[in-house]
């Protein structure tokens, strides 16, 4: 068959296959579709397909076939680049150029694909000639853009765009034929030689279009769009320095939106075009032209965003920069003050403001004309308010795209630094006015008339939606900042408005109470509105009064302290205290408005609402309560108590007397507040409102905040409210207290124990708190009848109750109490292990027992002395044995048997992981010697042995368990390789089986974990003397071959390649001779002479300059070779 005939035949096949691929699903079977797909897959792998491809491009009229042909051409070019002569390449490129010039009607996607092929060819060529040829081509393109007809102009733009696309990405480039280093240097070369020129001529072309005064024709608009696209691509170009690590470069290159793209960093050669004021004027002018068109406007807006924040060597002269920015600001203010910003523009506009503020240090702003700064701030304030309102209406309309919401979050950020610099660069008066406006707008958007504007509360309430507190966390924090700048405005306003709502509530209650009320939809709505308003105002109040301290001790914000001090001259302390103690409201006590501290007013309102809730529940009117609002109040009280209650006075420069008298350490008033809060916790636990898990967590959180500081806990343990809590759990029916509460209460009891300084007092406390439970447990299990009654439901419930309490107690252990808690609880561990035998059929009991061990290992193990650790390890052995005895060889019919196994193993792995951490983190001051000689590592190896047979492939397919398991084994092999690889070789063997699976079966993250495991094992064995003596050495050996085969068959995802390189290096260190043999074998397996040669070369390059001595430097060097190796072999190994 001649080549021509062959080409004809392929064309026919492809067109037939193409029509199958594009046929509707009802007309072709799956098999037919798969067969058609195979035709194209095979076509892609054709060797030297150039003339065939040209024939098809010339003859076929089917777009899909043309598209595939271009793809085949691209793959072949990448593969054969070095084999083709310069002439062949030039000719092919010319041909492709002509092809797209010739036919104006080819489909856009085919044209794009062919342009990509051309771009790859140009880029490849430039690597060899330093960009000479490309510059010539750009000359031609420039002529096209300025002198050609519209069609040629568009084509010219498309070529530039394809080129930029090809040069801009280096890490995830489509052209896999080059190493990353070559991609990178090609990018740098392009950037230095041609990028600026592209920007200049595109800007110039834009200017030409701007001059066209009349209505722009659709064709001109298309050119405009392309030009904007080019300019945008230049301005978001990642000018990345070589010092940046590759993965960071990859991250930068992955970002294409304006909000996140790195700020523009330009060299001094850009000065002329950028600092020319007409450039900025032009882009703003173009924006005026295109802003109505959603297809274009974002390209232009992105340009404006990037132009707002230029840095780099371009600014050697500070005044030049100031002039540039002044011009920019003037244009910007003109824009935003003339038009109403649309939702789709809002994010870009907010980003510009953010970048302007972030781009200059505050002193920079003081050098701008004050009028300009004033205008800028005023406009920013208006925009902030506008975005807040926009976000609220988006919420009301339940829109999916929340652009104003995002823009609002975005525009709030720069305010932090504006407010922080008020008085210096930004006039304080302006900032305060802005704060008042923004705060008021935000408040209005979230409450209903008459003060607010919100007219409906989530009609379509979606239970999966995040709570307001979480979803609006960031916004609320910023609103808190505004609020603290003007507390004299915000605090009285909130007090007044919340009290107004309480007044409305009273009216309603009276109405219901008097019995003349018809329950109706609108009545319910009225109640909901009140709840919603109070809920939001407390969210806001909480964020003004406290700052999220993220782990640091919470403090009274200085602005609030200052406000309180300022107010204190008029404040009547006695009245303030009375006010708080009686949960009074300003509206009920004439004259209290001035004489009571604002903070205390708010706290008193919160207390008042707690009392109201209590009364409603007592009167069986709980339907008038809102669980959500109740939770918000509890949250507010927790935040308040952390910052204000019994503050550490040494932390503050100035102190407010009213706050100190009401909440200070060693005051009656503070003790009263603490006791009040404890009573609130107790009430909530019994309350019918508190059925939702998150509400319970809030309540337990409030309790924790009262006991986790020693100076508070010292008072807590003497409070009547604390012992009421204790009695509550003791007296209430066991099954009516949810597990979270039981565990939470005992955690709190446990934490509070830290407050006792004297041993005697502490022992007395334990005797009261935990001894009864332990005694009860003993009594049950030592009862003669126990083996008969253990299965009775009452007994099982009792055992579970005790377990919850023990778990809570263990989870509250801290360094000072660990030893005591351990001595109290440890004896029960062995009893509980034994109970696994009796209760093995009750998964929930077995779970709780393992969880108790988990809490031990999580909270206490790191503080345990050697002798205590020994005892704990022995208990672990016993528990693991017991578990194994009842679970190995067991077949279950339970409908959720797999789920049970999953949960068991998951907790088990958690336990072992915590135990293992003792090998790294040992905070006990003990240097004693272990009696048993067992370490944490031994326990883990033993545990692993039990887990292995239970770990089936089906279970490993569950992602959570899978990653937990592989993380643990990797961790183990790194921490205690000797125990795993040599002392427990049978287990090692078992783990290796799972590693073999993990390398290919569960995705790239698991592959990485497995290669890490191999690396740890190999590097350990390599360091052993006479490693060949160990069985592990021989067990690990097959992995070298396995890994190499996976690499050569491209079965390792590129995301896991970097860890694979390290593992391969270490394996070669262990097995150098095998490596030689395997590579020879892999080479000889090939049949194509050319490929044999290239593969042999690739292997030689892989090991060039590398000593396989296990040293870090060599490992890194090998990794570089390995990267080139994989790039290299991918290019040629898998073609027909």
């Amino acid at each position, binding site marked *: 068959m001649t080549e021509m005939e062959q080409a004809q035949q392929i064309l026919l096949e492809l067109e037939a296959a193409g029509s199958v691929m594009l046929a509707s699903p009802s007309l072709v079977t799956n098999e037919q579709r798969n067969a058609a797909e195979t035709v194209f897959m095979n076509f892609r792998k054709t060797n030297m397909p150039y003339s065939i491809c040209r024939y098809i491009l010339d003859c076929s009229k089917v777009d899909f076939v043309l598209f595939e042909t271009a793809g085949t051409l691209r793959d072949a070019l990448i593969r054969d680049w070095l084999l083709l002569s310069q002439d062949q390449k030039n000719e092919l490129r010319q041909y492709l150029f002509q092809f797209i010039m010739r036919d104006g009607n080819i489909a856009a996607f085919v044209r794009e694909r062919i342009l990509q092929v051309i771009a790859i060819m140009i880029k490849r060529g430039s690597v060899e000639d330093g960009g000479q040829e490309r510059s010539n081509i750009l000359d031609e393109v420039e002529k096209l853009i300025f002198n050609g007809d519209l069609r040629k102009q568009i084509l010219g733009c498309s070529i530039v765009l394809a080129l930029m696309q090809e040069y801009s990405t280096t890490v995830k480039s489509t052209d896999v034929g080059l190493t990353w280093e070559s991609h990178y240097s090609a990018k740098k070369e392009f950037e230095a030689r041609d990028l600026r020129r592209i920007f200049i001529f595109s800007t110039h072309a834009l200017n030409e279009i701007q001059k066209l005064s009349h209505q722009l024709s659709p064709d001109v608009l298309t050119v405009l769009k392309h030009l904007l696209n080019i300019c945008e691509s230049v301005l978001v170009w990642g000018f990345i320095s070589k010092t940046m690590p590759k993965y960071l470069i990859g991250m930068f290159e992955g970002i294409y939106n304006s909000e996140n793209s790195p700020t523009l960093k330009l060299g001094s050669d850009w000065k002329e075009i950028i600092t020319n004021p007409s450039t900025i004027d032009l882009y703003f002018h173009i924006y005026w032209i295109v802003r109505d068109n959603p297809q274009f406007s974002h390209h232009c807006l992105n340009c404006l965003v990037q132009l707002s924040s230029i840095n780099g060597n371009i600014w050697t002269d500070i005044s030049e920069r100031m002039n540039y920015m002044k011009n920019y600001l003037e244009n910007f203010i003109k824009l935003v003050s003339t038009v109403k910003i649309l939702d789709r523009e809002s994010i870009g506009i907010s980003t510009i403001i953010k970048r302007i503020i972030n781009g200059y240090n505050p002193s920079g702003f003081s050098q701008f004309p004050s009028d300009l700064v004033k205008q800028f701030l005023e406009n920013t304030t208006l925009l902030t308010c506008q975005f807040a309102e926009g976000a609220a209406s988006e919420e009301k309309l339940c829109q999916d795209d929340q652009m104003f919401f995002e823009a609002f979050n975005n525009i709030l950020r720069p305010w932090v630094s504006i407010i922080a610099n008020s008085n210096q660069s930004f006039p304080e008066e302006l900032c305060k006015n802005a704060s008042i406006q923004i705060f008021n707008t935000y408040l209005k958007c979230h409450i209903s008339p008459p003060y607010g504007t919100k007219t409906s*509360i*989530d009609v379509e*309430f979606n*239970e999966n939606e995040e709570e307001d507190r979480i979803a609006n966390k960031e916004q609320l924090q910023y609103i808190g900042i505004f609020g603290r700048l003007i507390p004299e405005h915000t605090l009285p306003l909130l007090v007044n408005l919340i009290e107004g709502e309480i007044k409305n509530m009273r009216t309603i209650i009276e109405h219901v109470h008097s019995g003349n009320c018809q329950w109706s939809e609108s009545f319910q709505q009225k*109640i*909901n509105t009140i*709840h*919603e308003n109070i*809920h939001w105002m407390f969210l806001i109040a909480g964020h003004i009064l406290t700052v999220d301290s993220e782990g640091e001790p919470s403090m009274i914000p200085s602005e609030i302290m200052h406000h309180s001090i300022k107010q204190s001259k008029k404040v009547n302390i006695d009245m303030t205290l009375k006010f708080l103690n009686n949960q009074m409201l300003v509206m009920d006590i004439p004259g209290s408005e001035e004489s009571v501290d604002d903070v205390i007013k708010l706290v008193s309102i919160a207390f008042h609402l707690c009392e109201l809730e209590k009364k409603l529940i007592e009167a069986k009117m*709980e*339907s008038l309560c*809102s*669980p*959500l*609002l109740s939770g918000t109040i509890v949250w507010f009280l927790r935040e308040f108590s952390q910052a204000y209650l019994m503050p550490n006075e040494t932390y503050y420069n100035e102190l407010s007397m009213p706050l100190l008298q009401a909440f200070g350490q060693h005051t009656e008033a503070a003790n009263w507040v603490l006791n009040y809060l404890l009573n609130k916790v107790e009430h909530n636990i019994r309350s*019918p*409102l508190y*059925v*939702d*898990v998150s509400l319970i967590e809030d309540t337990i959180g409030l309790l924790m905040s009262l006991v986790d500081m020693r100076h508070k806990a010292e008072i807590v343990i003497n409070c009547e409210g604390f012992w009421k809590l204790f009695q509550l759990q003791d007296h209430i029916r066991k*099954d*009516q*207290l*949810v*597990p979270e509460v039981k565990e939470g209460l005992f955690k709190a009891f446990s934490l509070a124990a830290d407050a006792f300084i004297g041993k005697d007092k502490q022992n007395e406390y334990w005797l009261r708190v935990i001894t009864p439970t332990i005694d009860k447990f003993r009594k049950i299990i030592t009862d003669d009848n126990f*083996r008969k009654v253990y*299965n009775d*439901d009452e007994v099982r419930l009792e055992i579970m109750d005790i377990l919850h309490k023990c778990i809570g107690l263990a989870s509250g252990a801290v360094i000072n109490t660990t030893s005591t808690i351990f001595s109290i609880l440890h004896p029960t561990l062995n009893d509980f292990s034994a109970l696994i*035998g009796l209760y093995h*059929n*009750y*998964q*929930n009991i077995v*779970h709780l027992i393992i969880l108790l061990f988990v809490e031990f290992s999580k909270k206490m193990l790191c503080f345990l002395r050697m002798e205590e650790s020994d005892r704990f390890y022995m208990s672990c052995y016993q528990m693991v044995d017991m578990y194994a*005895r*009842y679970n*190995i*060889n*067991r*077949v*279950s*019919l*339970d*409908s*959720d*048997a797999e*789920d049970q196994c999953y*949960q068991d193993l998951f907790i088990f792995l958690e336990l072992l992981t915590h135990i293992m951490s003792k090998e790294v983190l040992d905070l006990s001051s003990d240097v004693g010697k272990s009696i048993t000689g067992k370490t944490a590592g031994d326990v883990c190896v033993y545990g692993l042995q039990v887990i292995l047979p239970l770990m089936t492939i089906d279970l490993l397919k569950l992602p959570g368990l899978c990653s937990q398991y592989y993380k643990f084994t990797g961790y183990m092999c790194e921490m205690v390789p000797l125990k795993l690889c040599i002392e427990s070789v049978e287990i090692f063997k078992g783990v290796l089986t799972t590693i073999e699976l993990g390398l290919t079966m569960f995705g790239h993250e698991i592959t990485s974990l497995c290669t890490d495991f191999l690396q740890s094992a190999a590097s350990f064995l390599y360091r052993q003397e006479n490693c060949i003596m160990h069985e592990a050495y021989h067990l690990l050996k097959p992995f070298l071959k396995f890994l190499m085969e996976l690499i050569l068959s491209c079965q390792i995802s590129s995301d896991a390649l970097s860890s694979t390189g390290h593992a391969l290096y270490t394996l070669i260190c262990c097995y150098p001779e095998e490596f030689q043999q395997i590579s020879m074998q892999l080479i000889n397996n090939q049949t194509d002479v050319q490929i044999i040669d290239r593969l042999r070369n690739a292997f030689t390059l892989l090991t060039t300059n590398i000593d396989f001595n296990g040293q870090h430097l060599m490992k890194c060097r090998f990794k570089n070779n390995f990267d080139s190796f994989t790039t290299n072999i991918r290019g040629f190994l898998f073609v027909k």
Partner: protein
Amino acid sequence: MADIEDTHFDTGDSGASTTYPMQCSALRKNGFVMLKARPCKIVDMSTSKTGKHGHAKVHLVGLDIFSGKKYEDICPSTHNMDVPFVKREDYQLTDISDDGYLCLMSDNGDLREDLKIPEGDIGVQLKNEYDNGKELLCTVLKSCGEECVIAIKTNTALDK
């Protein structure tokens, strides 16, 4: 949720109750509950509200512990639900009768012959292992007056 109020169960034959009441909110995943008069294990539990400021309702999904069939129910969280007493006991397998009944011996030596070989794979495995002379331990699940073999385990020397 129509018939929560009037859901009521007969007490067991011995007069002892086969269920006990529990506040809906105190139920937890992996626990048991009666759904549509069947003892079920809770495999999913979620709360929903009547509105943003409304009170919670609990949505329960359970699997019948005997048939594996799925049941669902929704209930105001303050209401009580019935929780079945669920027992699991181990027996030594001593014989299999020709008509497919198991002869089981409890811990204290009592014999019973009222349970059939379970259906499906587990039954086949049970028969095979028994025929091969292996010692077998059978777990019997009992709740609301129903009983069946739910799991088997080949006895190893380790066991008591």
